[in-house]
């Protein structure tokens, strides 16, 4: 039904006071932090866990992303963790008993030049070897999947074709966060909001607790999951990370009758757009080039975004932008995340997801929980160590074909 609300549960979480100490403290109550806490409890039996959130749960990038889920990344390392994540997405609604509106409506990644075509086919072949569903479509086939795309050869950047991942799709971000939060809470995890970490307690090279705006809390292990603010928190432990935090804007239109059946992404023209369940077009804009923690970007980025969108979707001309907003994305030099150990014992890192964090939520929660529980990386996040920047073994999704969103 138009604008219909899903049936949320009547109970989501307690609002406990922080205890004196926990076995594990997760810093950051976004999607990743909540999923990590859930899998720590569920998979590893570690339930004496607190998730500390400086604002409200999942109020950062989790609330600000465009909810695209896909696993069709080029490199084996990326494909491994994102495909693991997608498989978890496919069972998540049952697992968490929550309507997360996961819709496998497919994702088209458009190619606009001969080199785009080469890069796209390369990614399709790589994906298939990794067991990921992937197809190369010519323009007519693109039009069959998404009838409103302009495939005229006479536009500035014509559509030469697209890769298609049918299992990809979207989900409702808030619901996902609340589903993990509710499930973690039910397993005994303390979700503590309005609790900002102001310092890390380190003794003899080992983390022993965190200082917060609600007092000092002891911890056996501390798992950072602070996205755009990771540099700030890591700095409290004297750790430098190869991260830069940038604004990333997105926008929605008013509610519209269904016109757009899938998800379309274009790297060259820089569009990614889907139509959410209620009917609004959800669209991501480009990254602002400068470092910024203000959760807002510049207007010309939005103007450019609209021009690009109308190149591909002339029908959107009279749709209206209802709301724009910005998140803070932490970006690494190779556009791949850092998930693993740090130089401080007991302190773990999960950051650098850039624009890819939402889709990785279940996968990274699973692997990061394993890393924290065992004190060593899960095989799927082992390639995403900090060490790669020293050896040069980057997982360069920037230089490669897959669009970095």
């Amino acid at each position: 039904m138009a604008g219909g609300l899903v049936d949320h549960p009547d109970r989501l979480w307690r609002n406990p006071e922080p205890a004196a100490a926990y076995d594990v403290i997760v810093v950051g109550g976004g999607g990743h932090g909540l999923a990590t806490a859930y899998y720590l409890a569920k998979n590893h039996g570690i339930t004496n866990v607190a998730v500390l959130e400086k604002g409200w749960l999942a109020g950062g990038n989790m609330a600000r992303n465009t909810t695209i889920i896909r696993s069709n990344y080029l490199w084996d390392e990326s494909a491994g963790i994102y495909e693991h994540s997608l498989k978890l997405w496919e069972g998540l609604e049952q697992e968490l008993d929550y309507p997360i509106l996961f819709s496998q409506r497919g994702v088209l990644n458009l190619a606009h030049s001969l080199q785009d075509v080469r890069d796209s086919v390369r990614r399709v072949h790589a994906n298939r070897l990794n067991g990921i569903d992937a197809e190369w479509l010519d323009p007519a086939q693109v039009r069959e999947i998404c009838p409103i795309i302009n495939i005229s050869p006479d536009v500035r950047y014509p559509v030469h074709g697209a890769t298609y991942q049918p299992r990809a799709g979207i989900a409702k971000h808030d619901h996902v966060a609340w589903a993990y939060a509710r499930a973690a809470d039910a397993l005994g995890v303390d979700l503590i909001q309005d609790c900002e970490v102001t310092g890390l307690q380190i003794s003899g090279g080992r983390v022993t607790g965190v200082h917060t705006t609600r007092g000092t809390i002891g911890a056996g292990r501390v798992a950072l999951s602070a996205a755009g603010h990771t540099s700030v928190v890591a700095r409290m432990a004297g750790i430098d990370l190869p991260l830069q935090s940038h604004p990333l804007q997105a926008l929605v239109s008013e509610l519209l009758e269904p016109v757009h059946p899938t998800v379309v992404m274009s790297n060259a023209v820089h569009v990614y757009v889907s139509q959410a369940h209620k009917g609004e077009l959800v669209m991501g804009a480009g990254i602002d080039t400068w470092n910024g923690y203000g959760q807002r970007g510049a207007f010309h980025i939005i103007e450019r975004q609209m021009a690009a969108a109308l190149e591909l979707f002339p029908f959107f001309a009279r749709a209206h932008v209802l709301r724009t907003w910005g998140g803070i994305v932490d970006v690494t030099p190779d556009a791949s995340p850092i998930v693993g150990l740090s130089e401080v014992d007991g302190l773990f890192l999960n950051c650098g997801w850039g624009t890819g964090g939402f889709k990785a939520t279940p996968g990274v929660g699973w692997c990061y929980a394993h890393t924290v529980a065992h004190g060593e990386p899960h095989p799927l996040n082992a390639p995403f160590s900090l060490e790669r920047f020293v050896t040069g073994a980057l997982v360069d999704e920037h230089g490669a074909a897959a669009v970095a969103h």
Partner: protein
Amino acid sequence: MSQPFRTASGGLVDRGRALAFLFDGREYEGHPGDTLASALLANGVHRVSSGIRTGRPRGIFAAGVEEPNALVQIEEPFPEPMLTATTVELYDGLVARGLRGQGRLAADPDPGRYDGMYAHCDVLVIGAGPAGLAAAMVAASSGARVVVVDDQIRAGGSLLGTGEHLVWVDRVTAELEAAPEVRLLTRTTAFGYYDDNYVVAVQRRPGLPEHRARERVWRIRARRVVLATGAHERSLAFAGNDRPGVMLAGAARTYVNRYGVLPGRRAVVLTGNDSAHDAARDLAAAGVEIAAVADLRDGWAITGVAGTERVEAVTLRAPDGIERRLEADLLLVSGGWNPVGALYSQAGGRLVFDPGLAAFRPDGNCRQALEVAGAAAGSYKLGVCLAEGAAAGKRAAEAAGLVAGEIVLPAVTEPEVTPPLAVWTLPGGDPATAFVDLQRDVTVADLTRATGTGMRSAEHVKRYTTAGTAHDQGKTSGALTSGVIAELLGVEVGALGVTTFRPPFTPVSFAALAGRNRGMRFDPVRVTALHAWHEANGALFENVGQWRRPWYYPREGEDMAAAVLRECWAAREGVAMMDASTLGKIDVRGPDAAVFLDRLYTNMISTLAPGAIRYGVMCRPDGMVFDDGTVIRLAEDRFLVTTTTGNAAAVLDWMEEWLQTEWPELRVHCTSVTEQWATVALVGPDSRRVLATLAPALDVSREGFPFMTWRDTEVAGLEARVCRISFSGELAYEINVSWWDAVTLWEALLAAGAPLGITPYGTETMHVLRAEKGYPIIGQDTDGTVTPHDLGLSWAVSRKKADFLGRRSFSRTDTARPDRKQLVGLLPDAGTLLPEGSHLLTGPDETAALGHVTSSYHSAALGRTFALALVRGGRGLIGQTLWATLDDGVTPVAVTGSVLYDPEGTRRDG
């Protein structure tokens, strides 16, 4: 009877002209000056839309942008989804219908045009109500450059609704319009407030012919901004508060005074502040019977609203406790006034709860150069608004270094104000029909449920219930929602706060934001001096960066494969020519030019003799190949560097960055000359004969003009620089002439080569020819993870230089591994053309790839297909068989060296 609810006189509509329109399939009339909403009310139409979740009938609730209810779809003249009837200016022929939630996009292309405008000013006044007009007048009196924007069709703001001081408004408007440094933009809504006083506004321009922009986005940079955005009235949460006929009291006053429309015949007024009493007075004067004025401050309460399609009766409980049912078709409500703080919030300012106002207002401490005046600051008395506006205008002028004059403000006498009641929910009735957000159908019951889940944050509750996320972005519901949540949680509403305002203030069309940057103007197209010739001679084109390059030149009946084979044959066996003008060209000069280039290129440049040419590779400091090209030494202190087509600007930026930020001591200047030199590649065994014909003064002999040297000479009578370089392995020349002379040269070469069958070729043939020789294309055979060593270009990496960009990175563990991906050749089974992007496996059933195919072609010279690939440890696999993935299945391929044609280089000198 037409327009039964239109008053006989009064208001700002032109009763002399009728505008016909169609709503929900029925014909109506209105007048110029009407909105769709006022015209519907004039015709007695109250039910406009339906609740998105409940389907309950919904009417017209407000009279401006804050309207939460009256959503309409425009169908003609062109479909436009979801507008509020209160903001649609009525025009003849308008066809619209009421909406339940979702708008509809047109299936046809929008014929409208859109544009962008820029303005810079000393003072930007947002809102042309009393405060804004006073501010603008004072600022203008100083000679300051002033821009005033207002979303209505005429200035006046709240005075249009109260009908007061309109003579003053008209006089000020006329003076502002006449002032040379003032721009008064009506029908223009400021919707975004960005860093450093960058304000964006959308201007609607109805009634213009189709070739003129129907909407324009103004980008205004202001030294100082005066926010005079007024206030919006808010509702109260009580059961049945969504029925058509329930209307904000101030809106009803506006319909009477401004539009000459009676929103009903008999009204009940429910209020917690003084303003609704003024509304009641004006309505009564216009002929609406006021059944009761129930002031909550006096102990009145509401216990029922009867009627479904329209309010029929209202039940009140008087202060004495007696309930009375009053027949009425109109229920006017006023829960108080919210200063319009959206732009202030966007500007980085904070909104604080003011218990005296019972509203959130700007805290007066914004870091941007702005001030807030009038109702937007929480000052609701007209005299105060005027004075605040005048003072703001004066300060703004002074901030620009100007002196403001005195202006005459209207004399105002006002009664004392009784403080408003901070009231949100009215008790009694079913909380599931006590609406907080009318557009999202969010009720007190929904908010109660949300807070019951454990949610403590207004942001959570908003997301759980969707309150405040609709078309109106919570203009009437935001503060009310916070108030109700605060009551439910037992906290102060000020501590809870309101949710953050984000741009845009009102919805803006995608097309307006895109402006004219669509189609070919989305991104500039760069073409060479020969483009017209290419087009006239049937070339198909390829986009390379911003350039449009000839891809191949099919002849009658030829497909791409046939055309490319023919073009390749010509280059290998006869003579062929290509427009290579898009190559980036950078003039590098200065005493330290050679030192500079030694640091940038992996190979040694300083040893190059004037007159000679060297191929060079550039890396980023991480050791990965960034660009390649030739370096021509023109003199001791001067080089001409060529870059790849797509990278020319990046390379020039790269040079400037290093020169300016790292090596300022180097005396070097870099200048782009890409569009000064047109370049034609003349290729093939017969190229020498063609060149000799046109360049009689040039010694074209093998000894007289050796490989990798250049000569200045005349070609076809044109000043030219000829380089003996080859990207095909054949005897070849690159002839450079002035961009202006390109066509002359091209046609002379065609004529001179005609007897030898000279053949123009495009990028595809260029790619095949170079691939046959194993020359990599940066960006096709590399992807940002490839070193020069990986490409087999170790010969171009100096071992003598102390340092160059990228060198240190080659010795890192991963970069030094012997089994890195390396560029090799592949020979598939005869006839099989590997897909570019195919992956390479050690066996047909393996899934772990060793690398991928970067280039793959039919070769005329080899008489077969071949490919280049990046393969892990590839050079050690030469002679072995791998398996390449196809779209379906795999195929065996033999690994070879990357140079497949003329590995001895015998053809280079012809």
